[in-house]
């Protein structure tokens, strides 16, 4: 019933939420673009962990490795 909470809310509330969601998505798009650009300008990898995670090998291996800890 929680899942349909939105459905029973009146139109004004729904429109308000829609506006908030659109504002949020627009802001996320803007900041993700800006940060990616900034990283490139400074010669930083887009993923800050690029080159760092390699030594723990693949995801599956990484998990196995952790389980061996005493």
């Amino acid at each position: 019933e929680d899942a349909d909470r939105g459905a029973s809310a009146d139109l004004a509330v729904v429109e308000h939420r829609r506006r908030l969601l659109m504002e949020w998505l627009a802001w996320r798009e803007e900041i993700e673009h800006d940060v990616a650009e900034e990283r490139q300008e400074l010669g930083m990898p887009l993923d800050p962990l690029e080159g760092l995670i390699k030594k723990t090998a693949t995801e599956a291996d990484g998990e196995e490795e952790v389980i061996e800890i005493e």
Partner: protein
Amino acid sequence: MRPTLLQGHERALTQIKYNRDGDIIFSTAKDQHICAWFSHNGERLGTYHGHQGAIWTVDVDPTSTLIASGAADNTVRLWDIKSGKCLKVWEFNTAVKRVEFNEDGSQLLAVTEKRMGFLGTIVVLDINLDPNAEQSDEKVMTITCEEGKATVAGWSYMSKYIIAGHEDGTVSQYDGKSGEQIDNVPVHDVDTPITDLQWSADRTYFITAGKDKTAKLINARDLEILKTYVADTPLNSASITPKKDFVILGGGQAAMDVTTTSTRQGKFEARFYHKIFEEEIGRVRGHFGPLNTVAVDPTGKGYASGGEDGYVRVHQFDKGYFDFTYEVERQARAQGQM
């Protein structure tokens, strides 16, 4: 949501951290040892001994090689996760209340307490992620908080800014390289301490928890308050969920502090709010005391809370959690807008 109870701490929890893969949980408490647990079954995989006082804070580097901790014994310690060995001890004049690695694990910040004769500081240390390497003694940068001491702090995206929350309710933005203060804005009620500061996955925004019973979502770039979550109890912790647009808040008043209100004592519940709509969507009970810390699995599978009662409760999110969406979210998804 079915919780797993992690039993091992004998005192109040102070901080919980998941590693990046979400399979290990690190917890600190006032009982002087750090615990590591498997998140899927709650089995304890190790403890880290050495601190001589209450441990206030822990963080794990992004490669899950090292953890750092800060304690009432005025030290920051660096540990090899696998061997449990303490690799380095840095000494300070006062207790260390918060540590955090930056996005690539090359630096660690430590927030030190203010005490007679010593102002609160934020200190930066260089870290070598190789557990066999020598760690530098040098404190490469020290930010001194002349006005309100910092209670919490963290690194933004690109390690560009250090963001701190203060005891006076303000948030500061410092240059991550020079330590110069760029901005300081009131965020929570005047002279109500900020108790927690946690990041979004990409560190472009963060959430603060306040004793003023609110949590705020803030843009790291300009310190604009994006969202406000209003609770009915002082908050100790707040965390942002990946995958779903929720935030989780934890707090509650210790029974001894509840004097003026006749309402239900404590309110020891984790509260879920919709991150974008600011509406409360659910609560999770279970603790016998205030929630001192909440942390979310970075892979989005669950969350953990640590209480004044000495317990860590780990919850795996169920189908209902993932299915929960608002009508406008379903529509936006259907139209390819998100």
